[in-house]
C-alpha cells in the first residue's frame, strides 16, 4: 500500500528500511524511525479509537507523551500490553496493534449510542445514577461500566519479559534533552560533574528537532547533534534516551523508566524489557519543556483536529502530512511555523488568527510565502464525524464575545495552537509551590523546595537565547558547587525569530442556537457544559470539580486540558486563575508498566529463598517442600502414591512408636553473651532465669510491653556468660531487633551482646521412644542416659569427629533430643542419624507431621501466639514470675486480661470422631441462631490425632477454662460446614508430660 501522506524527502526517518505492521488486522508499511502514529498518518489513517464515555471517534491529537486519544493495545512477540500511546510507540517489524474502547469495531461501535444519549451522561452521572438500588450495583451497573470502560486488556498470562531495577547516584540529573537540557548538561559535564541526561523520546534535541533556529552558526539540530556526540564521549556523563523521569520523591530521589526493548520486535537475550532507575541526585535540573495548549471549540475532538506543534513534528521528524487541506487555528505565532512548514512542502494552508492585527517577523515570512491569513477569525465547529471534512468559521469581536456570520471552509485537518503550557510536574512533585505567570497564562515553578531548578520552556522562558544563556550558567554554577572546578564554556550566538504577544483567548463561544460539545478533556470526554454543571451544583474547589467531572483524571493527567479547565472555572466564578489554583500533580507523570515497578521481584524472586544445609538430601528423598517464611522446609516425604494426609499420618505415627528425625535448622537462634546475660534474660522472659545452671535449658515466653505474647522458645546456658536462645522461625528477626532495642536504648548499662546464629547451626530433632537408643549409637562416648542427660539438659558430644551440641528438649511431646552441628556438617549429621537410625525404623518427618505432634500435645505455636493472645490464653500463666518484673508484666493487670471469662486454649473433638475441622472456623453455642451468630472462639490449628485416630483441633475459646465437657458447634460458612463438637483439654495426649521425662 502506498503511503499517500508521506512527502518525498525529508524527516529523520530511515527511508532505506521499510517496516511492515498491522493495525486492526490491516497490514501497512512505514519506515524505521517512525512511531505507530506517524506511520498510520502516513497511510492516511486517522481513526484509531473511541472515546471513553461517549465512544466518539478518536484520531491523533499530539505527537508524544501528551497524547490523549491514540491509546492502543499492543501485541509484541506473543505478549500483549494495554494503554500504549501510538504517538510514543516506535515502529518495529511485525508490530501489531488494535483499537481499544470500541466493540465490535472501531468503525461501527455500539457504545457510540452513548453519544446519542449524551444528554443522559453529564457530569456526575455515575455518582447520581449508580447509587441505588444497592443490589443493582453488582448485577447491572458494575458489569456495564466494566465492559464500557477501560483502555485495553491486561494479559492474564505470566509475563515472560524481564524488568530490572537500578540504583544510581549522580551530581546532576537533567530531565529533558532540549536546548536547556543540552546546555546545562554540557557546562556541568565540562566542569567535571557526574551527569545523567534523560530524554523520554528516542531522539535527543527536544524542540531543536522541529524549530527553525541557528545556534553557533549552524542549524539548531546540527548543534544539538554535536553536543550529544561530545557528551557521549565523556566518562562522567550518562546519556539515556527512551527514558522518562516520571517521579520526584523525598530527599532528591527521582525515578526514571527506561524503555530498553519496546522499540524492538523482540527483547534481546539477557536484556530487560524496561529498567527502572532510582536516582539520588545532588542537584536536579528540570528541562522538560512545554506542551501546546488547544483552543476549545465545537466538536474539537473530531479526528483531524490536532495540536499545531504535532502537525509540525509529523512533518519535520517523520516527513508526514497530517492533511492536504490544512486549516491552522492559532492565537499566537506558533501556528505560523506550522503553516510555513506546510507551504514549504507544496501544501496551501489557511491560517485563522484570533488576533486583530498581529505583527512579527514570522507573520511577515508567512505573508511573503503567500499564505492565506484571516485575522480575528476563529473555528466555531469542526464538521465531519470520523474525520474533519470542513470547518465552520466566523469572525470574532474584539471582546471575544460575539461571532460574525458563519462560513464554511473545506479542510481535512485543523491544527490548533493556544500557546504553551510549561511542563511543571516534576517541580510540583518535589514540593515546589507553583505560581501563575500572567504573561504566558500558565503556572511556572516557584521557589525551589528540594535541590531542583527548572529551566527553559518548563520555566516559562520561550526564547532560545535566554534559555541557552541561563542553562549554560546554571549547569556551571551547580557543578562548581560540587566539583569546585571553574571551567568556562562559551555561550554560542543564537539566531531566532522574535514572537509577538499571544492572544489571551482559549474558548470559542457557542453560536446562537447551537449546542456543539466543546471538549476540555479529550480522554475523559469532559466538555465545557460538564464543568458548568459542576459549578452550578455547588462544586467550588478545583479538586472537587476535577473529581466530579473527571477533568484531568485520565491517564494523560490532563496534560492538554488542565489549564483550559482552570480558565473556565475562573471565568464562571469571576476569579483569577491563581486563586482557583491547580490540582495536585502526582507521580507517575505518564503511565508506567506494572512490570517495571515490580522489577525482578516476581515468582520465586519475590523473596529470598533460604535452604537448610540438608536441603539436597530432602530433595533426593522425595520431600515435598512448603514455604515457611523465607525458608523452604520439607512438608512430608512422599512414598509411592501417598497423599499429604497419608504421609504425614505415617510420619507422625512413627515418631509416636519408633523414632523420627526432623530438620529444625530454620529455628531462630541468638547468642546472648556477657556478664549481665542472666539478668537480661530475666527481664526479657516472663519466668525466672537467674538460677539456671550451666548445661541446662529452660522454656521461656517473652511478651511485648502491651502484655501480648511475642514469642517462645528454649534458651540454654552453654557456659557462665553464654546463652543459646531459640526463637520461632517466623519471629527470629523481630526478636533480635526487640533485644537490641532494650540493650541499646532502655538498659544500656547491661553488659550484654546479642547476635543471630541461625545460619551458623544445622539442627535435627530426634524424637520418639527409641530416640535415646539411637543417640547412644551416635554418641558412644557421651552419657545420654536419663541421669546423664535429663529432660532440659545439655551436653556437648562428638559425632564421629564432628563437634555437636545435644539438647534434650521436645516439641513433639515424645522423648526427644535436638542435635546441632556447624552448618557445613549438617548433611553429615543427618546422614549419620538416618544410617544409625535404620535399626530403630527411623523415618524423616516434615512440618505437617511436626504440627500434628505438637497440636495433639497441646503445645502452642504461631497460630496460637498470633499477636492477640496473652499467656493465660495459652495456658502459660504458670510461667509468669510473681517475684520479679519483666517486659509487659504491668499490662497483664488490665481489666480485660484478668476477666473471669477470659479466652483460653482448649481442645476440640468432633462428636462423630470423623469430620475434619477447618482451621479458622468459629465456635458457636447454637448452630441455628439468627445471624450474626455470636462467636465464642475460633479454631487455631487442626490435625488428625495419630494417637487416637480421630480429628483433633486447638481453639481459643471464651471462658475456655469452664468449657471443658461442653458441646458446641464449629461453623465454617466458607466450607459450608456445621460440625457438632465436644470441648476437651488442650493436652489431648500424655497430659502429665511423662513421655518427655522418660
Amino acid at each position, binding site marked *: 500500500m502506498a503511503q499517500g501522506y508521506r512527502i518525498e524527502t525529508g524527516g529523520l526517518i530511515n527511508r532505506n528500511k521499510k517496516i511492515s505492521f498491522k493495525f486492526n488486522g490491516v497490514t501497512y508499511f512505514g519506515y524505521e524511525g517512525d512511531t505507530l502514529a506517524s506511520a498510520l498518518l502516513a497511510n492516511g489513517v486517522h481513526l484509531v479509537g473511541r472515546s471513553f464515555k461517549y465512544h466518539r471517534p478518536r484520531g491523533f491529537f499530539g505527537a508524544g507523551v501528551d497524547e490523549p486519544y491514540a491509546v492502543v493495545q499492543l501485541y509484541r512477540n506473543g505478549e500483549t500490553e494495554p494503554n500504549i500511546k501510538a504517538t510514543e510507540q516506535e515502529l518495529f517489524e511485525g508490530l501489531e496493534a488494535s483499537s481499544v474502547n470500541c466493540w465490535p469495531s472501531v468503525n461501527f461501535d455500539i457504545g457510540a449510542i452513548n453519544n446519542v444519549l449524551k444528554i443522559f451522561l453529564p457530569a456526575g452521572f455515575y455518582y447520581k445514577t449508580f447509587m441505588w438500588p444497592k443490589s443493582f450495583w453488582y448485577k447491572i451497573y458494575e458489569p456495564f461500566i466494566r465492559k464500557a470502560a477501560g483502555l485495553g486488556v491486561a494479559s492474564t498470562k505470566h509475563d515472560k519479559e524481564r524488568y530490572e531495577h537500578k540504583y544510581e547516584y549522580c551530581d546532576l540529573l537533567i530531565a529533558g534533552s532540549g536546548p536547556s537540557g543540552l546546555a546545562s548538561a554540557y557546562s556541568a559535564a565540562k566542569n567535571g560533574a557526574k551527569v545523567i541526561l534523560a530524554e523520554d523520546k528516542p531522539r535527543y534535541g527536544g524542540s531543536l528537532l522541529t524549530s527553525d533556529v541557528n545556534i553557533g552558526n549552524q542549524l539548531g539540530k546540527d548543534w544539538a547533534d554535536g553536543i550529544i556526540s561530545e557528551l557521549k564521549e565523556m566518562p562522567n556523563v550518562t546519556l539515556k534516551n527512551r527514558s522518562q523521569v516520571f517521579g520526584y520523591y523525598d530527599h532528591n530521589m527521582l525515578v526514571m523508566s527506561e524503555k530498553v526493548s519496546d522499540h524492538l520486535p523482540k527483547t534481546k537475550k539477557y536484556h530487560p524489557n524496561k529498567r527502572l532507575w532510582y536516582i539520588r541526585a545532588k542537584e536536579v535540573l528540570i528541562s522538560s519543556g512545554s506542551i501546546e495548549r488547544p483552543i476549545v471549540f465545537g466538536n474539537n475532538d473530531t479526528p483531524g483536529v490536532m495540536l499545531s506543534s504535532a502537525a509540525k513534528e509529523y512533518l519535520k521528524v517523520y516527513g508526514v502530512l497530517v492533511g492536504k487541506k490544512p486549516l491552522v487555528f492559532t492565537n499566537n505565532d506558533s501556528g505560523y511555523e506550522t503553516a510555513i512548514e506546510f507551504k514549504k512542502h507544496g501544501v496551501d494552508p489557511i491560517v485563522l488568527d484570533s488576533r486583530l492585527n498581529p505583527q512579527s517577523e514570522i507573520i511577515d515570512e508567512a505573508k511573503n510565502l503567500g499564505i492565506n491569513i484571516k485575522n480575528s477569525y476563529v473555528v466555531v465547529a469542526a464538521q465531519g464525524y470520523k474525520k474533519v471534512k470542513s470547518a465552520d468559521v466566523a469572525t470574532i469581536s474584539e471582546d471575544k464575545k460575539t461571532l460574525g456570520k458563519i462560513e464554511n471552509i473545506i479542510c481535512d485537518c485543523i491544527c490548533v495552537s493556544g500557546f504553551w503550557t510549561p511542563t511543571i510536574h516534576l517541580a510540583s512533585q518535589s514540593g515546589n509551590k507553583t505560581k501563575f505567570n500572567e504573561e504566558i497564562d500558565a503556572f511556572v515553578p516557584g521557589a525551589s523546595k528540594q535541590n531542583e531548578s527548572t529551566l527553559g520552556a518548563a520555566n516559562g522562558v520561550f526564547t532560545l537565547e535566554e534559555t541557552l544563556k541561563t542553562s549554560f550558567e546554571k549547569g556551571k554554577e551547580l557543578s562548581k558547587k560540587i566539583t569546585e572546578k571553574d571551567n568556562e564554556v562559551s555561550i554560542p550566538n543564537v539566531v531566532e525569530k522574535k514572537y509577538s504577544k499571544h492572544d489571551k483567548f482559549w474558548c470559542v463561544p457557542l453560536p446562537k442556537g447551537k449546542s456543539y460539545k466543546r471538549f476540555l478533556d479529550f480522554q475523559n470526554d469532559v466538555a465545557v457544559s460538564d464543568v458548568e454543571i459542576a459549578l452550578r451544583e455547588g462544586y467550588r474547589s478545583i479538586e472537587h470539580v476535577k473529581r466530579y467531572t473527571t477533568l484531568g483524571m485520565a491517564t494523560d493527567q490532563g496534560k492538554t486540558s488542565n489549564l483550559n479547565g482552570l480558565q473556565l472555572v475562573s471565568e464562571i466564578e469571576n476569579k483569577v486563575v491563581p486563586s482557583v489554583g491547580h490540582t495536585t500533580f502526582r507521580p507517575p507523570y505518564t503511565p508506567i508498566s506494572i512490570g517495571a515497578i515490580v522489577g525482578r521481584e516476581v515468582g520465586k524472586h519475590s523473596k529470598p529463598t533460604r535452604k537448610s544445609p540438608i536441603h539436597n538430601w530432602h530433595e533426593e528423598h522425595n520431600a515435598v517442600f512448603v514455604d515457611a517464611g523465607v525458608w523452604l522446609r520439607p512438608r512430608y516425604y512422599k512414598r509411592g502414591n501417598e497423599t499429604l494426609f497419608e504421609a504425614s499420618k505415617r510420619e507422625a505415627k512413627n515418631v509416636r512408636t519408633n523414632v523420627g528425625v526432623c530438620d529444625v535448622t530454620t529455628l531462630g537462634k541468638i547468642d546472648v553473651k556477657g556478664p549481665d546475660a542472666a539478668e537480661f534474660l530475666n527481664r526479657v522472659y516472663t519466668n525466672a532465669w537467674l538460677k539456671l545452671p550451666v548445661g541446662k535449658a529452660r522454656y521461656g515466653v517473652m511478651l511485648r*510491653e*502491651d502484655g501480648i505474647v511475642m514469642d517462645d522458645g528454649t534458651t540454654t546456658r552453654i557456659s557462665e556468660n553464654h546463652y543459646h536462645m531459640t526463637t520461632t522461625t517466623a519471629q527470629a528477626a523481630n526478636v533480635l531487633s526487640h533485644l537490641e*532495642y532494650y540493650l*541499646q536504648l532502655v538498659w544500656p548499662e547491661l553488659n550484654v551482646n546479642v547476635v543471630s546464629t541461625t545460619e551458623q547451626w544445622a539442627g535435627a530433632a530426634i524424637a520418639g521412644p527409641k530416640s535415646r537408643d539411637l543417640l547412644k549409637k551416635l554418641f558412644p562416648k557421651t552419657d545420654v542416659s536419663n541421669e546423664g542427660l535429663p529432660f532440659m539438659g545439655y551436653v556437648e558430644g562428638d559425632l564421629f569427629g564432628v563437634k555437636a551440641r545435644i539438647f534434650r528438649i521436645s516439641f513433639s511431646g515424645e522423648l526427644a533430643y535436638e542435635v546441632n552441628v556447624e552448618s557445613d556438617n549438617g548433611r553429615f549429621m543427618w546422614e549419620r542419624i538416618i544410617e544409625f537410625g535404620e535399626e530403630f525404623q527411623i523415618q524423616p518427618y516434615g512440618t505437617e507431621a511436626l504440627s500434628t505432634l505438637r497440636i495433639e500435645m497441646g503445645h502452642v505455636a504461631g497460630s496460637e501466639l498470633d499477636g492477640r493472645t496473652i499467656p493465660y490464653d495459652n495456658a502459660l500463666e504458670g510461667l509468669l514470675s510473681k517475684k520479679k518484673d519483666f517486659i509487659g508484666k504491668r*499490662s497483664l493487670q488490665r481489666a480485660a486480661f484478668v476477666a473471669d471469662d477470659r479466652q483460653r486454649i482448649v481442645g476440640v473433638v468432633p462428636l462423630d470422631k470423623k469430620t475434619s475441622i477447618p482451621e479458622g472456623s468459629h465456635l458457636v453455642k447454637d448452630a441455628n441462631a439468627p445471624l450474626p451468630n455470636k462467636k465464642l472462639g475460633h479454631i487455631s490449628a487442626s490435625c488428625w490425632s495419630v494417637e487416637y485416630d480421630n480429628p483433633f483441633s486447638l481453639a481459643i475459646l471464651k471462658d475456655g477454662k469452664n468449657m471443658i465437657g461442653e458441646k458446641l458447634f464449629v461453623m465454617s460458612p466458607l466450607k459450608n460446614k456445621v460440625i457438632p463438637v465436644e470441648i476437651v483439654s488442650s493436652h489431648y495426649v500424655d497430659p502429665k508430660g511423662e513421655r518427655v521425662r522418660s
Partner: protein
Amino acid sequence: MLHIKCPHCGIRSQNEFSYGGDATVKRPELNKEVTDQEWDNFVYNRVSPRGKHLELWQHLSGCRQWIKVERDTATHEIFKTYKANEEVA
C-alpha cells in the same frame, strides 16, 4: 525515599532502616509502681505532631544500631541524627 544519616555508617537509603516510633517516650523503671495512666501513656498514648518529631529508627540492614532522628513529619526534612546514647540538643 528518605536519606538518613546513620551516626555510625553515614548517609544511607531509608530501605536499610526500620521505624521505631517516638524517641522521647521513656520506659518506667523496672519494679516501680506506676499508675494505669502512666502505663497507658508509655504503651499506647502518642502525640502525632505535624512538624518536628524526634523518632527512633534502627539501621536494620547496616550496623543494627538504634538511632534517634529529628525529622519534620510534614516535609520529611531531617535536621539531625543522634546515637542511641547521645544527648539530644
